[in-house]
């Protein structure tokens, strides 16, 4: 039985696959993924399913992560859902910039596939 619904948005198929695998090592997490912001919003528009947390890549070709977050915040049905950015850019300034958009936290790629689920739960438990 799952207790955490997670939406993972990333344009990189390799990463989506390994992240889904990693997150599902925790049997309590249900993962759905989208290849970008447009696909994610189409998914939300076409389904009653709503995530408890969103993991969001930053650099994506259709909409970047901050743009997706801004649009999520405009929706009444998901505006309070925690969003965790996931990015290959590790500098402190980039992290501060992303936190400024209202993210719950920032996870740096490459993440550890064996602990990603624990990392997400630890962020949400704060």
């Amino acid at each position: 039985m799952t207790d955490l619904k997670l939406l993972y948005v990333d344009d990189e198929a390799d990463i989506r696959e390994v992240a889904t695998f990693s997150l599902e090592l925790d049997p309590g997490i249900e993962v759905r993924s989208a290849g970008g912001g447009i696909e994610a919003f189409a998914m939300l528009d076409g389904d009653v399913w709503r995530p408890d947390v969103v993991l969001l890549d930053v650099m994506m070709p259709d909409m970047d992560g901050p743009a997706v977050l801004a649009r999520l915040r405009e929706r009444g049905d998901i505006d309070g859902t925690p969003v965790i950015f996931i990015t290959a850019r590790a500098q402190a300034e980039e992290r501060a910039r992303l936190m400024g958009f209202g993210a719950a936290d920032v996870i740096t790629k490459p993440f550890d596939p064996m602990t990603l689920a624990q990392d997400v739960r630890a962020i949400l438990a704060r």
Partner: protein
Amino acid sequence: MTMADPLAPLRAKFLVRVADDLAALRSVETSMKDRHYIVHRLAGAAGVFGYAQITDLARDLDDLLIDQGEAPPEAFAELIAALEGLG
């Protein structure tokens, strides 16, 4: 007795894609925008599969391309050489 690597099938798929990336990075016909996309993807993905050196090189190159809009050919050559070492 050794434990099976649960990431092995995903790593194998990643390496197939790396071969395509390598061909694209070697080609003079690949645009800088496409090169940057490949570099950025490698920066995020390679380390997940245990290729930390590739991630380090790709991340430095990614930072240069984002901050300066360009990077010296030697930086690309170094990444290409590291990718060739995976084969």
